[in-house]
């Protein structure tokens, strides 16, 4: 392995190394502050090292990993969101009585899994990354072992994720049987002409595996329960980091292998997209739990992303990248609010009932203001990143004249607006008499949320810098 190879892999290596450091650190001295310190340090180092990797990109390191600008962009997104999650976790688990340090170990491993996924160009690294991510997530989701809901969510995730991984493996096997290769890029050459049944079945099974991780309809059944049962920072990780990695992988897999050119595959993805947009938005309408609402909303958002994915032009790939950044920032802000208002020490569980948020604006204007901005961004209202993301997807769709898809997107997103407005209406309603006291919020948490909210609005009003970045990185 040459120096350039190592340089290209530097972000991944640094994440892996910090996992080792955290593990050894726990062995020497148990201290959550130390663990989170090493974690954040490792993630920041990994983020900085992207600049070292850019000059050598694109570079195929072993047949497994392709480190190009595209991968590095997503590694940056993943590492940054993981750092926010690490910070939020520290806030949330401060009062937890059991061992708190291992969470960061799991977090780093899951982040490494995500980074492997986005750089993957081969079925082997695809599976390795996926399993590294999934296995860490089982532990993270069920981390609060004294909570029934968390255990239930963890087991549910374990069983369904294992099943979907089995489907995925079988799909890979079928594709390998048909074409004799596991490299995405060689699939295209080997499978020219009409695809055989084995190949199509293999692709369909891999879609099952991808769809499960994205939580799109009809593979979404775990989403609401895991979102509700898991602790908010972990849910934030599931919702943002792991899903972004999966989208990045899906794009690369589909475009490199040319799978989307098969009519049947395109149709399947189109049906998944439409179902996700409709079902996600409609099922959220009747929820009264904020975490469940966000879960259904994320189903719908990945429906929107699939629309851009299906369009498939250069502008659509940029649209997906922008949308993912917008979605990540927004969801982190939303779950950040739930995190800092809750806490593992609360007996009553997390603050996630819609009633808990009634009149929050009149008691904590800043927090409610950030939450409003996040909700409006999810709804795609101008002056937020969510709007620019939606605009980008609509532009991509209009450019390729995918009218049915973008019309469905528009109509379902208006249905979605209804439940965001329900939360907003609750935030600004008159507080009820017996409202639970709102816990005090630490200054550092407020700072992180303020940064997220500023990002949300600044890049929503002036998106040019991010657009340029995306254009240079994903071209």
């Amino acid at each position: 392995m040459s120096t350039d190879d190592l340089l290209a892999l530097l972000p991944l290596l640094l994440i892996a190394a910090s996992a080792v450091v955290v593990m050894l650190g726990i062995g020497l001295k148990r201290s959550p502050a130390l663990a989170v310190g090493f974690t954040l340090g490792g993630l920041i180092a990994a983020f900085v090292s992207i600049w070292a990797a850019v000059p050598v990109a694109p570079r195929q390191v072993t047949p497994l990993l392709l480190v190009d600008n595209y991968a590095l962009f997503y590694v940056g997104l993943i590492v940054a969101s993981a750092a926010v999650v690490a910070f939020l976790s520290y806030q949330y688990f401060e009062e937890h009585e059991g061992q708190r340090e291992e969470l960061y170990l799991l977090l780093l491993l899951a982040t490494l899994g995500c980074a492997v996924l986005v750089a993957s160009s081969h079925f082997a690294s695809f599976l390795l990354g996926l399993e590294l991510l999934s296995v860490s997530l089982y532990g993270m989701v069920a981390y609060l072992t004294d909570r029934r809901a968390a255990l239930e969510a963890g087991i549910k995730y374990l069983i369904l994720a294992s099943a979907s991984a089995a489907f995925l493996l079988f799909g890979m096997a079928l594709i390998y049987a048909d074409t004799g290769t596991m490299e995405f890029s060689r699939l295209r050459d080997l499978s020219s002409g009409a695809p055989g049944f084995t190949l199509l079945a293999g692709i369909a099974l891999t879609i099952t595996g991808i769809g499960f991780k994205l939580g799109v309809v009809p593979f979404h059944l775990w989403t609401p329960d895991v979102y509700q049962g898991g602790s908010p920072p972990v849910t934030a990780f599931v919702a943002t980091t792991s899903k972004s990695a999966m989208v990045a992988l899906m794009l690369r897999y589909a475009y490199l292998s040319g799978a989307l050119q098969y009519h049947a595959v395109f149709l399947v993805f189109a049906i998944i997209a439409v179902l996700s947009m409709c079902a996600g938005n409609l099922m959220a309408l009747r929820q009264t739990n904020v975490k469940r609402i966000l879960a259904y909303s994320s189903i719908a958002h990945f429906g929107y992303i699939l629309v851009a994915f299906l369009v498939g032009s250069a502008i659509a790939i940029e649209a997906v990248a922008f949308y993912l950044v917008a979605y990540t920032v927004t969801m982190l802000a939303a779950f950040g609010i739930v995190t800092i208002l809750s806490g593992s020490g609360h007996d009553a569980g997390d603050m996630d009932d819609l009633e808990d948020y009634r009149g929050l604006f009149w008691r904590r204007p800043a927090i409610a203001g950030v939450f409003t901005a996040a909700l409006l961004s999810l709804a795609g209202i101008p002056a937020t990143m969510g709007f620019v993301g939606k605009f980008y997807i609509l532009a991509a769709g209009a450019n390729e004249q995918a009218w049915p898809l973008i019309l469905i997107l528009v109509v379902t997103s208006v249905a979605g607006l209804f439940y965001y407005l329900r939360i907003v209406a609750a935030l600004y309603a008159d507080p009820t008499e017996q409202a639970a006291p709102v816990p005090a919020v630490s200054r550092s948490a407020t700072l992180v949320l303020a940064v997220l909210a500023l990002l949300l609005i600044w890049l929503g009003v002036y998106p040019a810098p991010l657009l340029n970045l995306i254009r240079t990185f994903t071209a």
Partner: protein
Amino acid sequence: MILIWLIVILFVAGILAGMAARWNPLLSRLIALTAIGVDFLLAAGLWSGTASISAAQSAQHTWIAEADWDWVPSFGIHFHLAVDGLSLLMLMLTFFLGIVAVLASWTEIREKVGFFHFNLLWVLSGIAGVFLAVDLFLFYFAWELMLIPMYFLILIWGHERRVYAATKFFLFTQLSGLLMLIAILALYFIHHQTTGVYTFEYSELLGTHMSSGVELWIMLGFFVAFAVKLPAVPLHTWLPDAHTEAPTAGSVILAGLLLKTGAYGLLRFVIPLFPQAAHEFTPIALVLAVTGIVYGAVMAYAQTDFKRLVAYTSVSHLGFVLLGVFSWNPLALQGAIITMVCHGLSTGGLFVMVGGLQERIHTRDLERMGGLWAVAPRLSGAVLFFSMASLGLPGIGDFVGEFLVLLGSYKISVPITVAASIGILASTFYALRMVQRAFHGPNTQAWRLPDLNLREGLMVGTMIVGLLWLGLYPQTVLNTFGPALQNLQNEAQTARR
């Protein structure tokens, strides 16, 4: 440069007013009043400057003032603001009604004063953005942005069914707005296909070549957004709820300004950008307009809620605007624009009066009123004046507007004009019934209430003077938007060839 200030002043003052209420609510009101006042003076300054150049300006298409910055270069989006006579008139109306809105809520809004003025100033800043934008992306941006503060105004300070009304308002406008966004994007890409330039610039998109089928669909995307705002029957159902539940300031801004953004959009974008499709669509639009005129008047007659009654009269009056716009000849257009301004003043005045009445007797139910004239003669007289304006009494501005619209539409279609005239007749019934129920007859509930005070008197007095001015000497206003109107017609004409 002055144009960006119009927006920024309101924007910054909104934040200041929001914070100032912590120390003193009065300070918050004063900040709001000063900011809108300064904007009004700035706009008036621009207006007084137009008198000298309007003749020369009509020859070539130049804006009275403009400001242009790059915003999102990769999409060809500019932060481009410009005014001509039409938008200037609308801006003056915006700032005037903004002042009225602040004054009208002086004693009505006692809770959460800071956040109220924050929203009030931001909604005005969004509306100013709509009237100023000549980049379609910026237009859409402002178009959507003005909804959120309006939503909060209804949601927080509204009456009994405020959550329902606010949500309905938001959903209707959002769905139609997104359809317009798709239409804007379609236009953008079609323009790129024919010219190779990515731009949202209004003046460049004028005269974009496209097949007539495509043009019709894109025009419909715009039309739906504006028709919901206008509102045109059958897309009006959000309006009675929103107007009724909103606080007085909210109703004034909704009726006086938000509805005008729909009419402005039709004038500025729909017909100049898609003259051919608009021409084909004219019969349907005219029928919609007349349906709105008659339906609004009939529904108004049937209401017992004072505010809801006034809300339905808006449907009727804005029907005349739609009729005027789609008749698309000079007379009808002049009438439409005068109706827009006068409706803002007369309906705004009515909402202020109804709000004042509700503040005093805590009901909007006409059945429970009666005999108020003896108790509060000044208030009753003011309502009588605004009702006379509403029913189209000659000498008051509304008459001029509606009369010109009918003159213009007569050239297009006689049956439509006849039907619209029936609407004027119906307006006599609802206006007289409203005055009769509320102010005449026996005072069964033995109401005692204070009459108009100095603040209300000044506010109403100015609006009455404005309406009389427009009714007796509309030439000043006609001169203001005359060149702009000429330009719009020229653009539509050249594009059709």
